[in-house]
């Protein structure tokens, strides 16, 4: 960022007023002084910006800290917000690692030149489609797009092979989706890549004609399908398992992985990248290596019901292993054009 005299003046004024009130503020015992020095003795520290939720990844990050003795600080937020923060911070970011929910966030940060390339052996741990072609980030766990259906009104035989079939008027008023959700938008990006712009638009218009109910997120869709508000919903696969855990096995909804192998059968990666200006790049690398280790991969499989991306790790019972899914064959990097997708969605009238 180029310093600009007006900005500098305004910032100085703010700094001054902050300095004026900081005696009261800093007397508080909970204010950690930012430790910018990095690894000064011991095993040092690491700052992780996590777009993945604390409830999902805090246990495995704690395990990493225990095993390595590294002092890990984590900032949690949603992936787009964390990505926007990294973009604003630029070269002055305190972060060492960006742990993101989806390739879109990693792509945006990588495109701004803020990520450092990862070594070949780290990248090689996962299939080529689950990592950045430039080697700037690597996938850690997989999340499949599925159709969640209400078991009281539908059985798998009633469901089509391909996502394209949901534009059939027979589905009118029965579909729930979340147009603002990043994963749905990733699936639409996959459609634009696979089918072309026109067919993707036609699919959106067809779905819209079926008067789908728009929810805020995947969780709300699964709840609505369970309650029978809608019969099917376009979601990621792992949300259902949290409902089953809290509400019991008789929760009347199940997942259906579309067997057609098209964009509806997409498997996406949550991944991590290393900040180019991070002060603890060795520890950042250790972090990413740890997340690809069998222990961590097993954790994602067992605790968050995601797909391990490293071959040879056992998938959670009840989930069809990744290798046996007829997943859509696409590079995660091809899903980067999120802006094109939201523009299309706005044109069609799905997004404001």
């Amino acid at each position: 960022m180029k310093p600009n005299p007006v900005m500098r003046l305004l910032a100085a004024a703010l700094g001054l007023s902050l300095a004026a009130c900081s005696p009261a503020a800093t007397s508080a015992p909970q204010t950690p002084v930012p430790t910018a020095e990095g690894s000064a003795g011991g095993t040092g520290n690491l700052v992780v910006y996590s777009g993945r939720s604390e409830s999902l990844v805090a246990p495995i990050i704690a395990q990493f800290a225990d095993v390595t003795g590294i002092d890990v600080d984590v900032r949690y937020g949603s992936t787009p917000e964390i990505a926007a923060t990294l973009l604003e911070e630029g070269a002055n970011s305190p972060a060492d690692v960006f742990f993101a929910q989806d390739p879109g966030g990693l792509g945006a940060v990588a495109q701004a030149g803020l990520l450092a390339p990862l070594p070949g052996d780290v990248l090689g741990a996962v299939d080529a489609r689950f990592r950045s072609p430039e080697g700037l980030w690597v996938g850690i766990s997989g999340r499949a797009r599925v159709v969640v259906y209400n078991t009281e009104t539908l059985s798998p035989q009633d469901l089509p092979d391909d996502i394209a079939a949901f534009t059939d008027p027979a589905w009118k008023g029965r579909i729930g989706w979340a147009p603002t959700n990043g994963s749905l938008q990733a699936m639409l990006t996959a459609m634009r890549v696979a089918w072309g712009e026109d067919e993707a638009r036609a699919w959106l218009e067809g779905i819209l004609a079926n008067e789908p109910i728009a929810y805020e997120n995947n969780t709300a869709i699964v709840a609505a399908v369970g309650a029978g508000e809608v019969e099917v919903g376009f979601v990621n696969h792992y949300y259902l398992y949290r409902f089953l855990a809290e509400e019991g096995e008789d929760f009347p909804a199940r997942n259906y992985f579309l067997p057609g192998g098209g964009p509806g059968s997409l498997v996406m990666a949550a991944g991590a990248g290393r900040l180019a200006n991070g002060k603890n790049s060795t520890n950042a690398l250790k972090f990413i290596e740890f997340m690809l280790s069998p222990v961590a991969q097993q954790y994602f499989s067992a605790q968050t019901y995601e797909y391990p991306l490293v071959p040879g790790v056992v998938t959670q019972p009840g989930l069809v292993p990744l290798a046996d899914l007829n997943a859509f064959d696409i590079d995660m990097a091809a899903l980067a054009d999120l802006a094109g997708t939201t523009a299309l969605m706005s044109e069609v009238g799905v997004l404001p």
Partner: protein
Amino acid sequence: MQRGIRFNRFPRRWLSGTTLLWAAAGLVLAGLLLPLAYLVLRAVETSSGGWSALLRARTLATLGRTLLLSGSVTAVSAVIAVPLAWLTTRTDLPLRRWWAVLTPLPLVIPSYVGAYLMASALGPRGLVQQALEGPLGITRLPDLHGFLGATIILALLTYPYLLLSARAALLKLDPALEEASRSLGHTPWQTFWRVTLPHLRPALGAGSLLVALYALRDFGAVSIMRYDTFTRVIYVQYRSFDRSQAALQALVLVVITLVLVALETRLQGHARYVSAGPGAQRQPPRLALGIWRWPALAFCAGVVVFSLVLPATVLLYWLVRGLAAGEALPALGMATWNSLLASSLGALVTVVAAMPLAILAVRRPGRRTRLLERLTYTLFALPGIVVALALVFFGANYIPLLYQTLPLLVAAYVLLFLPQAAGAVRTALLQIQPQHEEAARSLGRRPWQVMLTITLPLMRPGVVAGASLVFLTVMKELPATLILAPVGFRTLATGVWSAVSEAFFAQAAAPALMIVLLSSLPMALIILHEQKASA
């Protein structure tokens, strides 16, 4: 222009005081301009396509929908808040103190949680429907989503803004005015319309403005109620990593805000609200409601049930269900402490920052101070993420030493919530007769002594109301806390968010209930003290 006696008779001494006030106000103003500067900086990067996207029919329609929502939420809030304020301060309503404590509490429920809770309770096949299905055979409730649902939920969550400022004004209003009206033969109803209500105008104006702007910036409730407002458009841009377009649209919100503020100032006019006589702050005679107490009671109960009991019941249900399923509850000690710390500091510093602005606006009325006052509202309609990212940009690149420290987080709270304190402080100041201060000055007190011994004590109810408003809203603040807090600084609100966003309901319920509990204690103390003081 006001013709009352002013402080000009002490030009030399006051010169320094005024200069100091202006310096302090200038500092606050500089802080407020930072996010604007950032937005302009980003918006300039927008491609020409961005500008045409802004003028599309769809965008304009969204703008219309947003304004419609803002207006309707304000109207519904007023219909809820004004009767509540009057009933709890001027009548013999049964359980008056209980209602006084309970009715402002919905403010502490974060709108994304409140809307989620109400949607899970009142949805077509939500918890209420499930409870009714057995005995009554109801299989589907009418769908509340869209404009109606968003209006109801936002009004139920924001009416406390109006309620708190109306209550503070009613408690400060000289009862002699209402008594005179009664003795001149007006019925209580006529007295309310002709005397009480007009005197509440500054308080209602300030409160309504907060409600209207809150509705503009809300993201949680409108997304869950599926009503597309301008804020949603901004979030969609951020989610597709288009910061320039988001900035351009945020600037539109700033313009709308300034128009609304100017409108409110115009409606307010130049009326004076101090009484000329000595006046007294004392307990007005309470109106006996008679048979009307039952509808009044039903009204209070209805508001509390829908805005507070219903969400709290859903939270308790989640908690119990989670505990029954053997889930371990999160430890809340550190998050509770952090929430209390951030909220108290936020409230304190915001009120201190609001003081010079309010004093200048009320005691030095003029074109410049009016402009200053309007500018405090500039950021209030912006979604928190916009202000937070502006501070990220300046903090990380220009003041790295303060970046991601508690002082910068508190600064963000000040910028976000300044109008809440400024409105309350200003209203309090408007009701103080300058003669009190002048008398003290003529007896040889220095300006700061007058401030400490006369003005501040008289302003106390308004200042406390402003501080508690800020306290309650910081308690639930999310975007700025997530991005700007010192790394590892978790609050109750971030705990709720983290759990709700991943559908761990029992984990969300515990910190959410803690927020409500923690906020009700200071609220109870304030209200009880307020009533004792005026008794």
